[in-house]
């Protein structure tokens, strides 16, 4: 099986970023047949990803059980397990195979605890709480069992931490330092298993590092339901592998890298790119589709390196799709627009804003304001105010629809189409925008974002009129417009979007914007001020208003103090795995 393994393809090292292929646009006939006014789509409840292990904290109406953990009596939800109950009293029982979003295997035996009146130690992940149960999580017998089991786990582990991508965020490293901390007593050779085996589009398997916890197998069976992974052989020679004739190619495959407690499964995209402890993590929201998964953006020196999901029980559970993980590629530093451009020349931002104000006020009579499903609520609301001042016609545009499934991916690839439509009021469809621009119906047009699919006719029409584009990166639209204002990307923006459930999702800035890049709402405020109009309000003020309207504490905290938006260094984050 190992001799026929294909060689591991090396990751592309060039500076150019290869975006995943975009789905083909819908035919023009379908778009022109669309209704004249865009109606906000219905808010849909997200299909909840399976999360069999809820928190032990009782909700109102739950039956409860009282038990004693390390001398502390706690009341928990009936039917929960001891491991979850121990979290309520601040005891983090070390474990490998248990995951709150997956079924319980109790295969690693790392979470053994002592339950009084029970002759043997019990795995706390599998032990259901009982009334009057007395549990000891740090008795000498438990500590000894933990240490001994870690020694077993490490028996065939290659300890190649220097070359392992997981080093620094590895559960095995953490538990070894906390509970074992001794040299090996084994002097027979370790069992060798296949290293760097290409098992899928996104994943490389190192079977030697695997500690056989079966989290990834349970994930593939329970979440996407594809079941590509399996255990082969037995005993010492047991190893993780893909089923014959299959490859780990499901749309959620990179989640197995996150849930792997060691570095057995690594993502090709992140492989050897940067060490985990050098990264900073910013909690934010995925901009890949209307689902709005809670994510953490991992970045170093103003460059994003990967996206991992954050737990949000109401939206995405513990998971996210592979497509969403690649959205960080659009934050590519090479494609960023750092300075304003007027008629093909870089100018200071103040000049560009004065030019926009002059051209909008002076010549133009008929103005089109194009709202964007890829911009925040704050930006769309600012544009709505500007459109009211100018008496502009309103349109809403966004990305073309893409792939969808029952779990998390939504066909609507705009993070904020609902927010954009709500902010714009009665807006026209993007198909009409193309037709009317091609028919030279407007003398000026303002695009809130650079994502818009251009035809050649529209491109030439944009060159002839005053076309303003607020864009964070070089896109075909930004190149076609006569004035480009440097806006912040979603990694530099403080704001909010509204997802497919109608929930407010918060965007947190990960780093300060480079060059002249400013928030879209701030740019629009400056344009209005330069035209001699009233102060429309800064981005922060708008975010505060949105936070109060939706009663969102997270966004309110971010607007109140910049300290709340400070990213955490992964080096000091000890709660992963």
């Amino acid at each position, binding site marked *: 099986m190992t001799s026929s393994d294909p060689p591991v393809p090396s990751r592309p090292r060039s500076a150019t970023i290869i975006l995943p292929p975009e789905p083909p646009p819908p035919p023009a006939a379908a778009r022109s047949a669309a209704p004249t006014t865009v109606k906000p789509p219905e808010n849909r409840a997200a299909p909840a990803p399976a999360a069999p292990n809820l928190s032990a904290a009782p909700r109102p109406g739950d039956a409860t059980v009282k038990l004693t953990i390390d001398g502390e009596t706690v009341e928990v939800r009936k039917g929960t397990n001891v491991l979850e109950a121990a979290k309520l009293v601040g005891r983090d029982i070390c474990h490998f195979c248990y995951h709150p979003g997956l079924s319980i295997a109790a295969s690693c035996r790392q979470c053994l605890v002592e339950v009084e009146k029970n002759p043997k130690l019990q795995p706390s992940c599998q032990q259901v709480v009982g009334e009057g149960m007395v549990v000891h999580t740090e008795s000498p017998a438990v*500590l000894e069992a933990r240490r001994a089991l870690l020694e077993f786990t490490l028996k065939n582990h290659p300890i190649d931490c220097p070359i392992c991508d997981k080093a620094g965020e590895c559960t095995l490293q953490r538990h070894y330092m906390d509970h074992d901390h001794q040299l090996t007593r084994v002097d027979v050779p370790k069992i060798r298993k296949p290293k760097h085996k290409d098992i899928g589009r996104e994943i490389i398997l190192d079977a030697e590092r695997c500690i056989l916890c079966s989290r990834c197998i349970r994930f593939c069976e329970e979440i996407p339901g594809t079941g590509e992974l399996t255990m082969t052989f037995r005993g010492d020679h047991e190893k993780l592998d893909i089923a014959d004739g299959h490859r780990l190619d499901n749309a959620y495959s990179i989640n197995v890298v996150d849930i792997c407690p060691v570095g057995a499964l690594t993502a090709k995209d992140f492989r050897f790119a940067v060490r985990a402890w*050098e990264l900073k993590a910013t909690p934010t929201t995925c901009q890949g589709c209307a689902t709005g998964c809670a994510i953490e953006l991992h970045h170093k020196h103003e460059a994003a390196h990967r996206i991992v999901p954050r737990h949000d029980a109401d939206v995405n559970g513990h998971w996210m799709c592979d497509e969403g993980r690649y959205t960080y590629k659009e934050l590519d530093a090479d494609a960023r627009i750092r300075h304003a451009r007027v008629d093909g020349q870089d100018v200071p931002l103040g000049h560009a804003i004065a030019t926009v104000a002059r051209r909008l006020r002076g010549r133009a009579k008929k103005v089109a304001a194009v709202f964007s499903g890829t911009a925040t609520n704050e930006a769309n609301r600012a544009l709505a105010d500007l459109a009211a001042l100018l008496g502009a016609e309103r349109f809403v545009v966004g990305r073309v629809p893409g792939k969808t499934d029952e779990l998390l991916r939504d066909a609507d690839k705009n993070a904020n189409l609902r927010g954009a439509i709500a902010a714009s009021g009665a807006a026209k469809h993007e198909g009409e925008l193309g037709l009317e621009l091609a028919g030279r119906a407007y003398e000026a047009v303002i695009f809130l974002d650079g994502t818009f699919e251009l035809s050649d006719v529209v491109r030439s029409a944009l060159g002839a009129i005053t076309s303003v584009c607020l864009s964070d990166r070089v896109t075909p639209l930004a190149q076609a417009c006569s004035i480009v204002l440097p806006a912040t990307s979603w990694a530099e923006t403080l704001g909010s979007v509204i997802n497919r459930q109608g929930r407010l999702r918060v965007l947190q800035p990960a780093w300060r914007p480079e060059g002249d890049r400013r928030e879209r709402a701030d740019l629009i405020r400056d344009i209005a001020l330069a035209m001699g109009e009233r102060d429309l309000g800064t981005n922060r003020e708008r975010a505060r208003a949105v936070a109060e309207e939706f009663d969102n504490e997270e966004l309110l905290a971010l607007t109140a103090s910049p300290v709340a938006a400070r990213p955490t260094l992964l080096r000091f984050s000890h709660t992963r795995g």
Partner: protein
Amino acid sequence: MTIGVKKVSLQRTTRDQIFLPAILEGLLTTARHFFKNTMTKGMGDVDTIRYGEPGVDPKSYYPERFRGVHRLMFRDDGSVRCVACMCCSTVCPARCIYIVAEDREDNNEKGPATFVIDELKCVVCGLCVEACPCDAIRMDTRTHMTPTEAREDAVLRKVDLMSRGGPSVAVQGGLGADYRADAPAADPRFVGR
């Protein structure tokens, strides 16, 4: 509590004002050391390095743990021992080590595509050598970084660092064959087993 005042007399004596006795005292000290270190057998108690004289290698006077300019060690097959774990660049207080990792596509799996040390930024602390788990980086060359005419000449690349290097037979990962003999005492938390 009040602070007491001590009065110091700054009055110079006649002996001080002449200066001559003090000069003679100084000359006497100089002369004593001169004759002791040149005329007596075994050159007195001063270990003078006869730097630059023929047949004298100043490097042999350097202590064994002297930290000189860096070098990178090889494996048996001539490939660099570094596995680009970034321990040295992480621990470096001067942030003068720049490594880009690459996939080596052999059993060693990971290696440095580029390995650059800016010797102008280096503070010669030796922490990189201590942090290295693979015995790849060493500072035992016993040579100082020579002054350069251009700043970029002091930025050493992988080729420069390996040109000073040599083969290393240390066991990868650090544990030698007889590690048990050097094993530390049991962790006090688990005493009594």
